[in-house]
């Protein structure tokens, strides 16, 4: 299996040390379009799509493998191995923050630093732990996702895939950054919002920075502080940016926070 084709891996940049960007639930590697180019002079930039998203190989989607975040973390390790990465900087948004944490436990030499943007170790409330959502709300989300097919139809899939860089949006490219097979979208939502990685945080040995947005309803400040308290020696920076996607809404602030850390 060609790992780089499977995950639609794009490598650019002018240096040896790599910076790996991992997108979260919802869209694809285009999420980094305002952030990644800023590091091209100083790093080798590695962008990829999780299997099931963007320009990844949908035929590689294996429901059993991707029913836990470990399936995605294994892919991330395989990408790192295929590119011969060592001591790289990992930048993970949303659910990919935890995917990066799991990958760092599997392959401790892969990353030298981690930047987690809007991380949450568990989305569903549990006793005293506040994740922000009830199990019922997540169940409603899974049903709701089926109400938004976003123009997906299996017949047009081949024309959508593989052209994520075209700036002008033809009919077939509309929504393509966030569109995938609805079954896969639902499964990815399920694994994202029902995961519980609280016990994995203590094992992290890599210097880690948490970027916490304000007014983020998906990963609240409380959730971010929890991650900070459980990852030994980690730092947290509170961004002025609001919402869950500062990489799109406030790229300059994200870039300067990452730059200050690495």
């Amino acid at each position, binding site marked *: 299996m060609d790992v780089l084709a499977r995950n639609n891996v794009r490598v650019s940049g002018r240096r040896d040390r790599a910076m790996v960007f991992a997108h979260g639930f919802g*869209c694809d590697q*285009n999420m980094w379009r305002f952030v990644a180019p800023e590091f091209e002079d100083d790093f080798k930039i590695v962008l990829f799509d999780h299997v099931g998203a963007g320009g990844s190989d949908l035929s590689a989607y294996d429901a059993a493998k991707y029913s836990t975040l470990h399936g995605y973390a294994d892919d991330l390790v395989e990408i790192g191995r295929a590119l011969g990465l060592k001591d790289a900087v990992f930048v993970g948004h949303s659910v990919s923050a935890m995917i990066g944490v799991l990958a760092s436990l599997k392959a401790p030499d892969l990353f030298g630093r981690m930047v987690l943007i809007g991380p949450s170790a568990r989305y569903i409330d549990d006793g005293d732990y506040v994740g922000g959502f009830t199990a019922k709300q997540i169940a409603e989300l899974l049903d709701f996702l089926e109400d938004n097919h976003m123009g997906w139809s299996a017949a047009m899939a081949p024309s959508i895939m593989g052209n994520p860089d075209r700036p002008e*949006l033809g009919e077939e490219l509309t929504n393509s950054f966030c569109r995938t097979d609805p079954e896969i979208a639902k499964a990815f939502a399920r694994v994202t919002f029902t995961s519980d990685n609280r016990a994995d945080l203590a094992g992290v040995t890599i210097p880690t920075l948490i970027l916490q947005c304000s*007014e983020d309803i998906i990963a609240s400040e409380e959730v971010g502080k929890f991650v900070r308290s459980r990852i030994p020696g980690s730092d947290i920076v509170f961004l002025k940016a609001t919402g869950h*996607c500062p990489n799109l809404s406030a790229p300059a602030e994200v870039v300067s926070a990452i730059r200050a850390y690495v």
Partner: protein
Amino acid sequence: MSEFGPIDDYRDLFENAPCGYLTIGPDGRITKVNATLAAWTGFEADKFIGRRLHQFLNMAGRIYCETHIAPLLRMQGFFSEFALDFETAAGERLPVIANAAERRHADGTLLFTTLVVIKATDRRRYERQLVDSRSELQRGLATERETAELREQFIAVLGHDLRNPLAAISAGARILQRSGALQQQKELRVLDMINSTVSRMSDLIDNILDFARGRLGGGITLHRDARPLEPVLEQVVDELRTASPQRLIETSFEIAEPVNCDRTRIGQLASNLIGNALTHGAQDQAVRVGARTDGAEFKLWVANAGEPVPEAAMQRLFEPFFRGEVRRSRQGLGLGLHIASQIAQAHGGRIEVTSTPDETRFVFTMPLTPAASG
């Protein structure tokens, strides 16, 4: 237009349009809402101002807003035809379909975002029912496929297991015949009957196995050659004459060119068609069998007299397990014609049927060489 006050008209169009309007400033806070959306949600218009869109949505909508709508607006500038659920002041769900677009300054800075919502309670319910019924059908289909496969595996195993006892009966009959132990006319007739029954049953089992193989993905495999076909057809007719001594089978064979085919399979096809004619044709009239080469084609036909095939049955003759109206004792499995048509297809050929009060005629046509079939 002007005397009616265009400014008032635009304002009215904005406020009371049959859709909801909402504008959001670059800081993500709502700047304007129209009277329609305020009325639909049950909130005063000023309750919206300065707050965020997601505060008026249910939780699923909030997550979707953050993970899809906001990123898409930023990346492509618009997002159309998405479903969303508002939460009304009374705590009820207001399902809508929405379009959103960014308005940007010439220098690229975001000015504001416009959202248009259309009430879609019935439409959304209808779509949900479609999605639900599709999932239900998919589940049903999966179960059905599993059952079908099991059934076909069962048929394959059954066919195999029936062969051994049948071989034992056949061998037993042969021993009795050779030993000369049976002398009386009546005993010899019983022996003949055993032999013809064994041969009929053996054909049935062959059909079952061919059917199961075809269904389980093996398909009908051909071993083609161009050796003379006529002796094979003669042998098939002889066997059927022996099995039905009281019936008349007339033949006319004019095979002038070599026919590239699987001769055993074409023999089986002929046997199935003639067997069908013997079963369903008038018992007191001959079954006529012909074969000839005609240009680049080979034709084989089987005709019988008797009641025509009913129109409804015509459509289904070649379906597996289809059985016409016949005496119970003569009933087969309903696989003969199905297998015959599969053999015809494997040869790039076809079987056509005509049925009138005068005669029912099956005509098999195939190209003389595989290349001619394209």
